[in-house]
């Protein structure tokens, strides 16, 4: 328990040998402060100086070559996203940084915002220069009131020192950055919802097409929305060079990735690892210290609560191309799946926001799903009927099953409701709320069938 900014951190003082701290390098140091002097003493704003000597197109090219993928959830290649912006179209362009961090299981942006705001601001300045942006907003969830103050102070400091504001470092490039606080709605993390919220409206997501942020973004102008961590990576791409940076990761997933592990492991925490460098087994056993005493692992949600759950013991079938061009099939134990965007996609789930939630054999999966269903039922924005009604319906079914009033058709009804949401809604919340139900019911039928046929009594956590 503690109630100040020197919170008990989920970081070990010395990084695990498999870790490679770049984003977390400074903020994990116990004496590191979020002020400008400290940042400058750690080489801060050197990359911004360098960037201003480059052509904007060279920076975009470097980001493409780095193989950086977005860290907000969709793992979209950042360079490709940036390529959608045409600096010469005569329009105003905006950069909006997504610091809404509200996907259950995700807790990385929190530490960047509270402890190393200048790392983010340097990334913003470089990105804005590359994208011909002169006005940027950082959207921070209001449950981080200290972060909003810390980042605002950092903006004032950076402005006074000439790293932001008019004619940055004597160049002709000017940039204003402001903090915008959310108001407690998870849906505002979805990028088009976030833009509506930033425009002062109810945060109803916009339909794509045509409202891709790069085309009709903030105030209907071309806009890049990137996650806090994604933007922090930009300066390191310049620092290390795109090739060096890319080499840390895999061809499909460059650089480092933060993985946030919570739930039933010995050492929950936020770990920064070269992308694609560890298997689930290494993450759970080597880095996180294995299960709690006397327990075994049962299930893992690998990329934030919306990602499809994995069952320990399941086998993944992957196809790979042989040197002669023929295809071969390989069975991989789920624990040997590599924790990166492409391998988790091949395993039928996603790396998402990197929030890994672990459940051990003491847990009932119906209980866990019900917890998530209550979350989604509460957070649906209500715009689309399948999502608004379906999320609530699923929560009602799992709650009823938990109370001992399950009926044999419940698992089937759950699946049928979920199957009728995904793909039929305006935003990806539709998928986000149906994937847990689909995967939990399919992969742990025994927990659901038990509750569907006879009342169960022991369903509390811990």
């Amino acid at each position, binding site marked *: 328990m503690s109630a100040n900014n020197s919170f008990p951190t989920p970081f070990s003082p010395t990084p695990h040998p498999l870790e490679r701290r770049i984003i977390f390098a400074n903020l994990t140091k116990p004496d590191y402060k979020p002020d400008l002097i400290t940042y400058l003493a750690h080489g801060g704003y050197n990359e911004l100086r360098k960037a201003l000597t480059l052509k904007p197109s060279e920076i975009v090219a470097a980001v493409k070559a780095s193989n950086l993928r977005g860290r907000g959830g969709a793992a979209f290649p950042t360079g490709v996203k940036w390529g959608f912006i045409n600096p010469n179209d005569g329009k105003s362009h905006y950069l909006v940084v997504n610091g809404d961090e509200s*996907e259950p299981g995700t807790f990385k942006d929190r530490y960047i915002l509270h402890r190393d705001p200048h790392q983010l601001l340097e990334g913003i300045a470089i990105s804005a220069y590359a994208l011909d942006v002169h006005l940027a907003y950082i959207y921070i969830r209001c*449950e981080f009131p200290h972060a909003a103050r810390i980042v605002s102070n950092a903006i004032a400091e950076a402005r006074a020192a000439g790293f932001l504001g008019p004619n940055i470092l004597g160049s002709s490039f000017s940039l204003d950055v402001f903090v915008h606080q959310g108001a407690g709605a998870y849906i505002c993390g979805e990028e088009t919802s976030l833009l509506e919220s930033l425009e002062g409206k109810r945060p109803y997501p916009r339909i794509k097409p045509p409202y891709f942020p790069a085309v009709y973004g903030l105030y209907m102008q071309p806009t890049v929305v990137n996650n806090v961590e994604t933007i922090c990576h930009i300066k390191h791409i310049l620092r290390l060079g795109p090739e060096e940076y890319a080499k840390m990761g895999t061809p499909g997933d460059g650089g480092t990735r933060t993985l946030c592990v919570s739930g039933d492991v010995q050492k929950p925490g936020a770990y920064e690892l070269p992308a694609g460098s560890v298997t689930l087994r290494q993450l759970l056993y080597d880095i996180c210290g294995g299960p709690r005493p006397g327990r075994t692992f049962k299930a893992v949600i690998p990329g934030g609560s919306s990602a499809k759950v994995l069952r320990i013991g399941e086998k993944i079938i992957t196809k790979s191309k042989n040197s002669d061009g023929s295809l071969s099939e390989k069975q991989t134990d789920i624990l040997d799946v590599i924790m990166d965007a492409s391998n988790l996609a091949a395993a039928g789930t996603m790396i998402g926001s990197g929030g890994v939630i672990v459940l051990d054999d003491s847990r009932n999966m119906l209980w866990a799903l019900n917890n998530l269903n209550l979350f989604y039922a509460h957070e649906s924005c209500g715009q689309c009927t399948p999502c608004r009604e379906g999320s609530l319906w699923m929560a009602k079914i799992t709650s009823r099953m938990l109370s001992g009033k399950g009926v044999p058709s419940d698992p089937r009804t759950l699946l049928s409701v979920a199957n009728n949401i995904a793909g039929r809604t305006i935003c990806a919340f539709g998928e986000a709320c149906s994937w847990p139900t689909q995967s939990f019911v399919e992969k742990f039928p025994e927990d659901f069938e038990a509750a569907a046929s006879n009342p169960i009594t022991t369903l509390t956590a811990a």
Partner: protein
Amino acid sequence: MAQISNHTETTSQNPNNSQTPSRQADNIPASLLQQINETIARYPVSKRSASLPILHLWQNHFGYIDDSAIEWIAHLLDLQPINIYELVTFYPWFRQSPPAKNIIRVCRTLSCALAGSYEIFDKFCHAIGIDPHLAAHHDGLINSPCGNFSIQFVECLASCGTAPVCLINDDLYEKLTPNDIPKILEKLKTNSEQTPNTP
């Protein structure tokens, strides 16, 4: 689902009902006005964007948002009252009735639940004299009879690695155990310099 939150909050007791209600918009201090004007300047393209930050400033100052506030802010931003009202009713953070001195938000979502947040929530509720079952199913804040504490079960606070957690006023409390709760409440009571009427 924020619509439900509004429904329950508007039907809750307004302590000013018996007296002539004083309109918040008639009591705006100069410091708040100045903050509001500074806020609008941060949105050079559209001042409508300032509606959320102004609602935050307003709620931080007055504790909640009354009808006069909705009209006043709408007028300031050249909007219709509905444009502000629909924000207050959608976003869970905004409220239309006064909270108690301290606001306790316990995280309910999976990682915290795995670490015992339901037990933490129950313990808080019992300690401040609120039925935990009622509170868990209530959307929005519930005020304790002593007027010192409002409580709410909220969704993931993005600190799952130090679960279970709660946000009290502006501060995060992490790795909570049931034994921490009496200590936390005692400290809050001293901080608000007030002895509660009921234990």
